[in-house]
């Protein structure tokens, strides 16, 4: 075997490439010799945290992964559920945090490109995307640059593909200043029978590389970008940024779906992190076969590329197909029709070995499964972080001076509405095409996006639908990872339920600091435990997800941020609901009950500059009962609107319902609580609904039947929001505070 590396240099290079000494030893044992340069690169990438999940794998086993809807659980490029009438929905969320921190536009854009490849690799046509973003506060120019760039990149890529970006979330907090989070979620639709797998089988079958040329971009990207902490060295890592080509990806979507439709492929995989090495070795080990790849056949974008560079390049917009020789001509004809390159770069073998050659010179030869599946799995040490005792000991009720006089509550409400964490997200989603494909029934701006199930292009319409939302409040997770993760799930479910969807399954993106720090790993473990238990309680499955570790800068981790992307189904999409108050005289009812829980609230941070205390408590049984009540009421057609209480509490929820419906409200709130708590407490499991007076009684019956507390708050009408004598603001005032707040913050105002 040819080797371009002096054997004595191997251990040293291994370390540079991020392999721990004991990991390098394991490679030597597997091979029974010193690894070659190419092999070393391939192992170092496949065994990096990003590709191998070596620190998280065990904890993730807590997740419930089997359930009624599930057609494909974790393990493939995306999970898949059945959504009725033989329709299947593939979805997954993934992070592109570190690339985006270096170059926000391209980082976010290629993040979208990557997650969308994961979707159509499954045989599904991408039908929608969401994005979950975290930045430092917008008073910092760098943060404004990152935020604007990421949003432009997400739009730039998704808009070009014609995949509507229908929702998401964004928070701004100092905790993310050195390490922004860019999580992208994508969903795709297919007929159940078209579900495919990224598996290589059949000795003698051909390996076809489809799409873009291969350059040196992102060499080592998977490990250097995604598995190393951020610090001033960030600058040096810049060149490994990749530029996305959404046009090429659009052609790939069409060509690959056509190849699958025509049943021309044995398996299909996408090239993402660790490029060809990752997709090829995973396809091989899934099929229990070997591969023989000749890098000399790969269309190169640059001169004099070395074999290892071909194997680890992260050039975007490339797919790997396995097919029987008889189908090659037909398959290549389809690629050509779509203006795509397609090149046979190797064959499937029965040796179980992954052989890489350059012409007739072999440069790497290893057991295929060892790359994808024999990465070491760790049991990281964990200890409860010391800071928790301190923050949880803080009593937000006595710890700060809450407004005594009530006339300031108006101002606090308006300030909350103008907070970048609460204000209108219109500035974001109007940069995204959220309607293309004509299935978006509830546009961004409500609790969850609602989409009709169907393929307008093929005239395959149904009246079924899905509702989808992504949520996570990092502050809650910082103050209590277990509770915070459960709330992330509960809120996503609540948003979906408010829109008329019955929660079916979730994907997640777990963003944490360095797992090798016991205190960080503890927060990770507790979050996974909390999320798992919440899923089990609701009977909702985790079908896919992604872990992003090492989200730290200058040694301090971000807030634990386990983002949940939840999908619910609507048997009749016309039975959806929005947050907008509808009609004069409608009765406003609060389902659930407000407690004095301002710990970790936006109110506490905004009015008192404090992020401390315990997060709101979450009672999953109550949560389920409240959600069941709303679903029943929507199903009976008696709800005119539904909107949950989240950041900012009841007052903000009411304001949002008023603005969305362009109509006021007159309400009374709980008198046993201090007003600041009644208005701004972020108690969970609360949903504000409206109904025609005639149906109010029926709504109350449903609440009683589900044994949940409720309160009739008042009525819809007029052009101002009045909360007793404490709050009285006009719709204009509300809008003036809420609508332009993001633009103002971005203008540095």
């Amino acid at each position: 075997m040819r080797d371009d590396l002096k054997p004595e240099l191997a251990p040293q290079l291994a370390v540079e490439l991020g392999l721990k000494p004991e990991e390098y030893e394991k490679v030597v044992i597997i091979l029974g010799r010193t690894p070659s340069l190419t092999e070393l690169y391939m192992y170092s990438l496949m065994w990096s945290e990003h590709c191998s999940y070596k620190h998280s794998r065990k904890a993730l086993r807590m997740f419930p992964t089997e359930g009624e809807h599930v057609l494909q659980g974790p393990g493939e490029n995306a999970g898949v559920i059945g959504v009725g009438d033989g329709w299947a929905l593939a979805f997954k969320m993934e992070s592109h945090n570190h690339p985006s921190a270096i170059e926000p536009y391209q980082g976010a854009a290629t993040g979208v490109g990557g997650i969308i490849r994961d979707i159509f690799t499954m045989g599904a046509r991408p039908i929608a995307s969401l994005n979950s973003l975290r930045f430092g506060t917008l008073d910092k120019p760098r943060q404004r640059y990152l935020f604007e760039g990421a949003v432009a990149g997400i739009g730039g890529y998704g808009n070009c593909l014609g995949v509507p970006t229908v929702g998401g979330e964004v928070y701004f907090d100092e905790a993310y200043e050195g390490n922004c989070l860019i999580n992208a979620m994508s969903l795709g639709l297919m007929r159940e029978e078209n579900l495919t797998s990224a598996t290589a089988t059949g000795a003698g079958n051909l390996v076809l590389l489809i799409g873009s040329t291969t350059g040196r971009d992102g060499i080592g990207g998977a490990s250097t970008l995604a598995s190393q902490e951020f610090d001033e060295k960030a600058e040096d890592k810049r060149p490994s940024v990749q530029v996305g080509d959404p046009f090429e990806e659009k052609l790939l979507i069409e060509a690959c779906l056509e190849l699958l439709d025509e049943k021309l492929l044995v398996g299909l995989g996408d090239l993402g992190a660790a490029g060809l090495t990752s997709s090829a070795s995973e396809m091989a080990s899934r099929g229990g076969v070997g591969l023989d790849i000749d890098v000399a056949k790969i269309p190169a974008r640059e001169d004099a590329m070395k074999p290892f560079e071909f194997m680890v390049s992260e050039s975007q917009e490339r797919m790997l197909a396995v097919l029987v020789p008889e189908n090659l001509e037909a398959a290549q004809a389809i690629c050509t029709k779509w203006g795509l390159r397609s090149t046979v770069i190797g064959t499937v073998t029965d040796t179980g070995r992954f052989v890489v050659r350059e012409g007739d010179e072999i440069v790497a030869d290893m057991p295929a499964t060892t790359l994808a599946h024999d990465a070491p799995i760790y049991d990281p040490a964990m200890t409860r972080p010391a800071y928790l005792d301190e923050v949880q000991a803080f009593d937000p009720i006595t710890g700060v001076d809450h407004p005594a006089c009530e006339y300031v509550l108006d101002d606090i409400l308006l300030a909350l509405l103008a907070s970048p964490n609460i204000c209108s997200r219109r500035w974001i989603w109007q940069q995204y095409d959220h309607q293309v494909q004509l299935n978006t029934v509830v546009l961004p701006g409500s609790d969850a996006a609602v989409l009709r199930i169907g393929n307008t292009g093929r005239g395959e319409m149904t009246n079924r639908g899905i509702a989808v939302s992504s949520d996570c409040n990092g502050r809650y997770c910082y103050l209590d990872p277990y509770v915070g993760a459960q709330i992330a799930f509960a809120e996503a479910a609540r948003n979906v339920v408010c829109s008329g969807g019955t929660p079916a399954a979730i994907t997640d993106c777990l963003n944490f600091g360095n797992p090798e720090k016991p205190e960080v790993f503890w927060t990770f473990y507790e979050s996974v435990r909390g999320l798992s238990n919440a899923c089990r309680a609701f009977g909702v499955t985790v079908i896919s997800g992604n872990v992003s570790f090492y989200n730290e800068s200058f040694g301090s981790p971000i807030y634990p941020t386990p983002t949940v992307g939840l999908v619910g189904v609507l048997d009749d999409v016309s039975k959806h609901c929005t947050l907008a108050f509808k009609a004069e005289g409608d009765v406003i009812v609060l389902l659930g009950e407000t407690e004095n829980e301002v710990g970790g609230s936006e109110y506490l941070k905004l009015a008192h500059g404090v992020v401390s205390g315990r997060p709101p408590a979450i009672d999953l049984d109550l949560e389920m009962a409240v959600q069941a009540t709303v679903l029943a009421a929507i199903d009976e057609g008696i709800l005119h609107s539904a909107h949950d209480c989240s950041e900012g509490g009841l007052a903000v929820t009411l304001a949002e319902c008023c603005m969305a419906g362009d109509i006021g409200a007159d309400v009374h709130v709980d008198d046993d609580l201090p007003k600041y708590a009644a208005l701004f407490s972020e108690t969970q499991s609360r949903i504000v609904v409206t109904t025609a007076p005639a149906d109010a009684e029926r709504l109350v019956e449903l609440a009683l039947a589900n044994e949940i507390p409720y309160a009739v708050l008042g009525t819809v009408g007029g052009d101002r929001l009045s909360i007793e004598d404490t709050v009285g603001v006009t719709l204009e005032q509300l809008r003036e505070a809420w609508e332009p707040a993001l633009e103002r913050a971005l203008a540095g105002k």
Partner: protein
Amino acid sequence: MARFQIFVTYKKGIFDPPGATAERALQSIGYGEVSSVKIGKYIQLEVADGTPESRVREMCDKLLANPVIEDYRIETVEGA
């Protein structure tokens, strides 16, 4: 008033999708002699007299170019 022109191009090894597309398009409409197209930015800058090139360089680093993926070249325009 002084004039500068700035040529912004992708760094070596950074993929240039518009260039690649133009290349293919030209070949397909009958210009087979085309072997490579790269598309960058051509910026014409007018500044107050006596503005040193170093200032222009600053402007490029901060705003006119994206140092992460682009290189640039500055030229003074004589007789402006």
